[in-house]
C-alpha cells in the first residue's frame, strides 16, 4: 500500500513537467504580449521595443543561439523557458511582469481564498448531490426522480456567470439577506488580521466569531454558484451507480433476508455505489478550480482563479505559469489521493 502510494505520488512529477511545457507554450503562442497590453492604444513600434527589453521579453523562448556565441552553453539556455524552469526548481516562481512583486507572495495570499470557496462548494455538492442521487435511484421513474434529474440537467447547463449574477440580484440587491461579494465586509476586512487567510478558520483562531460568521455569509452565494455543476454531476452519477447496484443479486438477497429498505440502501448498496462517485468527486475538483475563475470574477472573490484570469488577459506570463502549474499540482494530488482511497472504500481492492 505504502509503496503504491509513493509510486503514484512520484508519477506526479512527469505530469508537472509536461504541464510546465504546455502552459509555457500556450501562453506564449497567444499573439500579443505584456508590452502590447501595457501600452494599449499607444503602442508605437519604438515604445514596444523599449518596453519589451525592460520586461525581458526580447529573449528567445526556448534556445538562445546568440547567447551561445557569447557565453557558451549557459548562454544557449539563457531563454524565457529555461530561466523560468531554472527558477522554479529553486522554488522561485518569478516576479510578476506588470506588478513587479514576487508571484509567490500573491500565490500564498490568494490560494486560501480559492481553497475556502472550493471546500464550501465541495461540501454543498457532495451533501446535496449524493442524497438526491440516492433518492432518485430508490424512487426510480417517480416524480421525485424525474424532477431531480431535470433540475440536475439545468444545473449542468447553467452558466455560472449568469447564475452568480442572478443570485446576487435576488439575495443581495432585492432581499438584502446576503452580501453581494468579497470575502468580508469593508469594516471587518480592514480591521481583521488573518493568520492563515482561511477566514472562517482564522475567525475561530483569533476568537473573533463575528469574523467566522461574516466569512460564512460571504461564502454562501459563491459556493452555491460554484456548486451547481458538481452537484448535478454527482447526483446523476450517484443515481446511475445506485441503480446498477440495486439490481445486483446480493441486494436482492439482502432484501429477501427481510432487511429494512434503509439497511439495504445505505449499508449494502451505497457503499458499493460510492466507488465511481468518489472518482467523479475527485475529478470535480478540477471543475471547481476551473469554475472558480468565473465565480471569483462575479463575486470579486480574492482567490487564485481571478488572479490567473487577470494574468492571462494581461499576458503576465509568470503569474499564469505559476498559477496553472500550482492548480495542476493540486488537481493531480487530489486525484491521486482519491485513487489511493479506493482501498478504504472497497476492502477487496489491494495494491501492489
Amino acid at each position, binding site marked *: 500500500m505504502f509503496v503504491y502510494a509513493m509510486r503514484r505520488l512520484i508519477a506526479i512529477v512527469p505530469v508537472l513537467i509536461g504541464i510546465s511545457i504546455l502552459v509555457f507554450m500556450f501562453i506564449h503562442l497567444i*499573439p500579443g504580449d505584456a508590452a502590447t497590453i501595457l501600452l494599449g492604444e499607444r*503602442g508605437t513600434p519604438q515604445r514596444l521595443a523599449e518596453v519589451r527589453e525592460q520586461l525581458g521579453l526580447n529573449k528567445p523562448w526556448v534556445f538562445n543561439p546568440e547567447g551561445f556565441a557569447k557565453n557558451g552553453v549557459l548562454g544557449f539556455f539563457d531563454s524565457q523557458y529555461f530561466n523560468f524552469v531554472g527558477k522554479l526548481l529553486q522554488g522561485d516562481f518569478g516576479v510578476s511582469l506588470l506588478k513587479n512583486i514576487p508571484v509567490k507572495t500573491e500565490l500564498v495570499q490568494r490560494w486560501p481564498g480559492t481553497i475556502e470557496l472550493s471546500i464550501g462548494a465541495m461540501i454543498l455538492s457532495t451533501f446535496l448531490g449524493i442524497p438526491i442521487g440516492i433518492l432518485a435511484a430508490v424512487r426510480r421513474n417517480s416524480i421525485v426522480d424525474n424532477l431531480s434529474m431535470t433540475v440536475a440537467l439545468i444545473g449542468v447547463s447553467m452558466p455560472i456567470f449568469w447564475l452568480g449574477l442572478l443570485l446576487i440580484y435576488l439575495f443581495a440587491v432585492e432581499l438584502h439577506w446576503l452580501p453581494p461579494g468579497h470575502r468580508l465586509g469593508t469594516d471587518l476586512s480592514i480591521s481583521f488580521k488573518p493568520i492563515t487567510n482561511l477566514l472562517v478558520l482564522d475567525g475561530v483562531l483569533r476568537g473573533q466569531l463575528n469574523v467566522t460568521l461574516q466569512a460564512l455569509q460571504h461564502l454562501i452565494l459563491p459556493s452555491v454558484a460554484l456548486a451547481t455543476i458538481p452537484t448535478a454531476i454527482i447526483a446523476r452519477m450517484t443515481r446511475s451507480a445506485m441503480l446498477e447496484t440495486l439490481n445486483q443479486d446480493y441486494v436482492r438477497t439482502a432484501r429477501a433476508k427481510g432487511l429494512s429498505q434503509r439497511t439495504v440502501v445505505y449499508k449494502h448498496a451505497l457503499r458499493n455505489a460510492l466507488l465511481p462517485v468518489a472518482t467523479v468527486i475527485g475529478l470535480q475538483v478540477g471543475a471547481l478550480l476551473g469554475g472558480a475563475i468565473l465565480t471569483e470574477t462575479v463575486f470579486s472573490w480574492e482567490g487564485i482563479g481571478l488572479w490567473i484570469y487577470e494574468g492571462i488577459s494581461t499576458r503576465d506570463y509568470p503569474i499564469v505559469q505559476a498559477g496553472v502549474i500550482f492548480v495542476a499540482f493540486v488537481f493531480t494530488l487530489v486525484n491521486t489521493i482519491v485513487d489511493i482511497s479506493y482501498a478504504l472504500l472497497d476492502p477487496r481492492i489491494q495494491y501492489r
Partner: protein
Amino acid sequence: MKHWKIAFVTVALGSAALMVATAQSSAKTLVFAQSGDAINFEPGDREDGNTLQAQQPIYERLLGFESGTTKLVPSLAKSWRANKTATEWTFSLRSDVKFHDGTGFDADAVKFNVMRWWDPKFEYGYRDKGKLWEPMGDLLSGYKGDASAVIKDVQVVNKYQIKFILTQPFAAFDAVMASIYFEIASPTAIKKAGADYGTPASVGTIAGTGPFILKDWKPGDRIVYSKNPNYWGKTTTNVDQLVFRTIKDTSARFAELRAGTVDLTVNLNPDDYAAIKADPKLKAILRPSFNVGYVAFNTQLKPFDNVKVRQAVAQAVNKKEIVASFWKGLGVTDGSFLPSTFSDFRSPKVKDYVYNPEAAKKALADAGYPNGFETDFWYMPVSRPYFPTPKPIAEAIAADLAQIGIKLNLKTEDWGTYLEDRKKNKFPMFLLGWTGDYGDADNFYTPHFGPGAVDDVNYRNQKVFDLLEKAQKLTNRKAKVPIYQQVEEILFNDVVRLPFVHSQPLEASKATVEGYKPSPLGEINFADISIK
C-alpha cells in the same frame, strides 16, 4: 436531528445580530469601487487607469485642474511661466508643503522625481527592477539621451524654483505636467524603501503630499486611506476613511452599489442609466466627454485606398440613430475627432456627413463599385468607455452598410492580439478609440495623425504633419485655433478615422454622496466629496 435545528437557529440569530452590528458602524467611510486593483503606488511609472486613480488621493502634481474642467490651476507650484519660444518653463513652488513622512517639499524633491522618470542612469530609477516610467516615454517622447525626448534638462534654480529646458518648443508642457501621471513622491521615502517603493511591502513608507494618506493595501481586495490632518490645502470633504474595493465585473459593481456595500462606482453600463435615474437612493453622475470612438479604414488596403469609398461609407452609416440607441443619451456623434471640450478648435466649415443611403450608393458607383464589395470589419473584444458594447454596435454598422451593397464580415480576437494585429495590415476596417490625457488638442491629433503615429491606417499626410508641428510650438490657445480648424477640415474630407461617438462614461453614487464634480479627464478628486 435536534442538534441540526439548534445549530441552524444559532447561525440565523448570529447573522441577524451581525447585520445590525454592521449597520451601526461609523458613517464617515466612503467606499469606492473600480474595475481593477492598483498595480503599484509609484507615481510616473504606469498609465493604467485604475492605478492612477488609486494614486490620486495621496499624491499631487506641480499643477492641477480646476475641479470638473481642464483649466490649469496652481497646485504644488504657486505660479509658472514659459519663455517666448516655449522651450524653457519655470515653476515657483509652495514653501508650506510637507510630505506625509514629515519631510519638506522643495525643488530638490521635484528634481529627484523627474530624474527617476527621465534619466535611465539615475540610481533611484530602478529600471533593472522592473520600473517602466511609461508616461515620460509616451507623453514627452522619450528619456534622457533619446533624440526625440522633449526634456533636455531640469535645473533647481533655488529652494523653491525649478526650471525645465526643452529640446523643442512645446506649448502644452504645463498641461502635461498637470496630468495625473506626473505626481511627486517623497524622496526620503523612496530612498528608504528602495526598489520596493510603491509595492505592497512598502505601504508604511509610501508618502506624497495629498489630502489622503495611504494606510493599508491588500492587493486584489482593498486599499485604505485616511484623511491627512496636516494637509496644506483646503478641502471640503468630511470623509475620514476612504476605501477602494476591486470589483472587476460591471454588473457586479452595479449590484454592490444597489445592495449598499459601495458608495460610488465608475464605468457602468449605459443600459443601467435608466435604472439609476429611477432609483431615489442612487444618483447618476455624467462625466463630460473627453474621448472619441472611431471607425478606422486602412488606406493601404483595397477598397479603402480610395477616398470616395471612405466618404460613401461615412454617408451610409446612420451614426445618429446608432449612437442614440446604444449610448442611451450618454453619447453624441459629430464630424469632429475632438470632443466638445475643444469646441473652439472645431471648424465651422465641418458639418457632419448626413445619412443618405441613396447618395452613398451613387458615390460608391462613382468610385467604381456599383455592386458594392465584401470586406472584413473588426470590432474590439473588450468594453472601453468610448465603445461600451462593441459587438452589437459593429452589427448595426454592418446592417447599414448592407443597404448599399457592402457586405462586412464581422471579426474579433483577444484584445492583446487585436492591438497587435491592427498594425499588420490585417484589418481593412476596424473600431477603436482614444481617451485624452491632458487638456490639449495635440494629445488627440498627434498620436493618430502625427509623424510618429501608429501605422494602423497608413495615413501619412505631410500637410497635416506640418500643421500639427506648428501648433505644438504655440503657447497661445487663440493662435492655434485656425491651425486646428484646418487640420479638422483635411481629416474630415479624408475620412481615415471616421469620428463615431464622444461618449460620457456613466458613474453612479448613493444619493448621500455630495460635492463630486466629475472631471472630463477622468480622475476623481476625493477631497471634494462628502457623505451626508
